[in-house]
């Protein structure tokens, strides 16, 4: 029996090529296995063979999503893989998004099982858990030893067409796929049990968790816009040329505050978008599409708004974790309040 052919995906760091300074590295393919591939090969056993490893820098992947995907698919095609494993990415946000993106693309393109592993807070989990089996891992590479056997076990089940067990048993992040089963008790009996637990204040477990929306109550309306001080906050990744704060093109960990004093409009000579994952061609040509300075300046002149703050806040939306976004929002809000801003226009892409 010939061995099951496996292709493994790693970023520049795990492929032991370099750290952040190599994050722009373009996709490359190496025959055989590298670094974490050793543990994967061991866990998969003798019936499997890692025939190739694809490596790509996290920044390159994030900034060139489409191109990175198609190039990687081209690279691995000649190897006709039967199984694809990406990462695991642990808590690395950009790496997680890359693993999720490429595994999803491989599964779709080649129709083979593709899986990865991530820490629960990795934004890639939320983005890809519906599309992929993502093994739950520790938050750092120290968890590699434990993660790889789980990935291998689930991969084998997928290859052999075995039934997949519950998330807790097979160690993957719940995908939100509703699967039928027969309970020991009928539904009405379970309802009575659950109700008594709830009435007594005991712990109970709903059988269908409602979708969770972190709703923010809207602020009270502004009565008189002609007295409002307005500021612009954007997740469109607009930054001054050169990206002085080194804001990431995806999975941002920071935001920037940029001055527009004396400007009537956003000039493409001063500002660019570093946002990954969407076509920035139009915004690069006219940054006012993301930061509508031109229109707001006119409204300021005409007295329709009281005053426009002489700066805007900016970060990247794609792949940015809800946790980070909350931190950004809270901090930006504090600064805006301190500056007497009464209205904010949020722009995205």
């Amino acid at each position, binding site marked *: 029996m010939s061995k099951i052919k496996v292709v493994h995906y790693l970023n520049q760091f795990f492929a032991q090529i370099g750290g952040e300074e190599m994050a722009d590295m373009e996709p490359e393919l190496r025959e055989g296995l590298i670094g974490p591939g050793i543990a994967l090969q061991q866990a998969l056993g003798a019936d499997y063979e890692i025939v190739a490893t694809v490596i790509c820098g996290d920044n390159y992947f994030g900034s060139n999503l489409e191109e990175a995907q198609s190039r990687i698919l081209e690279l691995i095609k000649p190897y006709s893989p039967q199984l694809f494993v990406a990462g695991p990415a642990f808590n690395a946000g950009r790496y997680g998004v890359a693993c999720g993106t490429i595994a999803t693309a491989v599964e779709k393109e080649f129709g083979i099982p593709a899986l990865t592993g991530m820490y629960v807070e990795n934004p890639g989990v939320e983005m890809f858990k519906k599309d992929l089996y993502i093994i739950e891992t520790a938050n750092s590479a120290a968890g590699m030893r434990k993660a790889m056997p789980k990935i291998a076990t689930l991969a084998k089940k997928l290859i052999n067409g075995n039934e997949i067990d519950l998330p807790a048993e097979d160690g993957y992040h719940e995908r939100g*796929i*509703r699967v039928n089963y027969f309970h020991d008790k009928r539904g009405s009996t379970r309802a*009575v049990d659950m*109700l008594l637990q*709830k009435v007594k204040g005991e712990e109970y477990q709903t059988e*269908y968790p409602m979708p969770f929306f972190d709703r923010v109550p809207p602020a009270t309306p502004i009565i008189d816009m002609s007295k409002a001080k307005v500021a612009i906050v954007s997740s469109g990744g607009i930054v001054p040329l050169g990206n002085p704060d080194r804001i990431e093109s995806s999975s941002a960990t920071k935001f920037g505050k940029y001055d527009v004093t004396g400007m009537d409009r956003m000039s493409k000579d001063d500002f660019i978008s570093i946002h990954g994952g969407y076509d920035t061609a139009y915004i690069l040509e006219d940054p006012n599409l993301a930061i509508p300075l031109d229109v707001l300046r006119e409204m300021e002149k005409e007295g329709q708004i009281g005053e426009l703050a002489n700066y805007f806040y900016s970060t990247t939306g794609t792949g940015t974790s809800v946790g980070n976004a909350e931190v950004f929002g809270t901090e930006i809000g504090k600064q805006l309040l301190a500056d007497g801003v009464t209205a904010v226009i949020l722009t995205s892409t």
Partner: protein
Amino acid sequence: MKLELGKILIQDVQFGAKTEVVDRTLFVNKEEIIELVLEDDRLIGADVELARPGESVRIAPVKDVIEPRVKVTGGGVLFPGMINKVEQVGSGRTHALVGATVITCGRIVGFQEGLIDMSGPAAKYCPFSETNNVVLVIEPADNLETHDYETAGRLAGLKVAAYIGEAGKNIEPDEVVVYETKPLLEQALQYPDLPKIGYVHMLQSQGLLHDTYYYGVDAKQLVPTFMYPTEIMDGAIVSGNCVAPCDKVTTFHHLNNPIIEDLFARHGKDLNFMGVVLTNENVFLADKDRSSDMTAKLCEFFGFEGVIISEEGYGNPDTDLMMNCQKVSQKGIKVVLITDEFPGRDGKSQSLADTVDEADALVSCGNGNVIINFPPMEKVIGTLDFVETMIGGYEGSLKPDGSIEAELQIVIASTIANGYNKLAARGH
């Protein structure tokens, strides 16, 4: 109000010269049944077939399922306001032929109703694969108007169930269960230390083929009201709803409401079952506002500390379910909801069409969108002509060999949202 329910166990059904129960076998007189059905001149044809557990039989298209029962003592008669005069029921003694049913079958409209398989892999999804069924195949007069045909079919089933139920009147039941709910203040005092629990029963009430009747009143016309739980056991509530086979609450399921049964099972042990609030699922949003307000008001007034709310149907009823949940919760009453799920074929979408934050305790009766394969059966009662137009069916569902590929939705009461079945869905 106190009802003794005598359960006469039925383990087989056969045709016979006389409709009677002998040694747990139900014998039915075919000619008498046909005669009874054809008393209604809106129906020009009727046939009776039998379907037993394990047989290679498929029944389609199924409209309603009814358990034969008979009133032995106590006021009133079965199915008040429908086939009998309106009189309070729920007291005295009633006998039920447990393990037997009457199934009405026949084309109402093109996409109606669903399937029952008596054996094979799909049988486990349907409670009526385990019962001994007297199947009534009816045929309407030419050009009979749809509403009239629906009514005639509904009444035929009820009449035949009542007729067969008579056979149990003088039989000594295998088991007698006593259910009692006292007037509110007495009931509260009976078990002062146990949590007072109520049941909010949402009745399907959207329009043609989406109606339920309470003492003959169309549930659309109801304002929420109180019902002693035993009233339902004498047929106070009758189903007229044929659509959405999987979550259809048949008349059988009203007679045998599992929530009422399970609340009684714990009554006096770890809860005090106070009674039932009936409400509806109207299409008018103003009706929803009114009904949910009144449901919450009644639950508060009766001093419920916890309620179970069940729904019938998908979409429009989800909004009623959530409004009831929210408003009852806001009265400080703990709420558990029972529902089935429609998360799409891949199981990844939202299961319900509406949601509120208060819906934090929900029991799932399964995912109705799952695709099931039904192998061919040796015998079909009714017709498979409408399989592809039934809910859950689609073009290409019916294969030339008589096998069927369709969503679980097509099976009668397979994901019924009152918790009658053990089927559930969970997250993978």
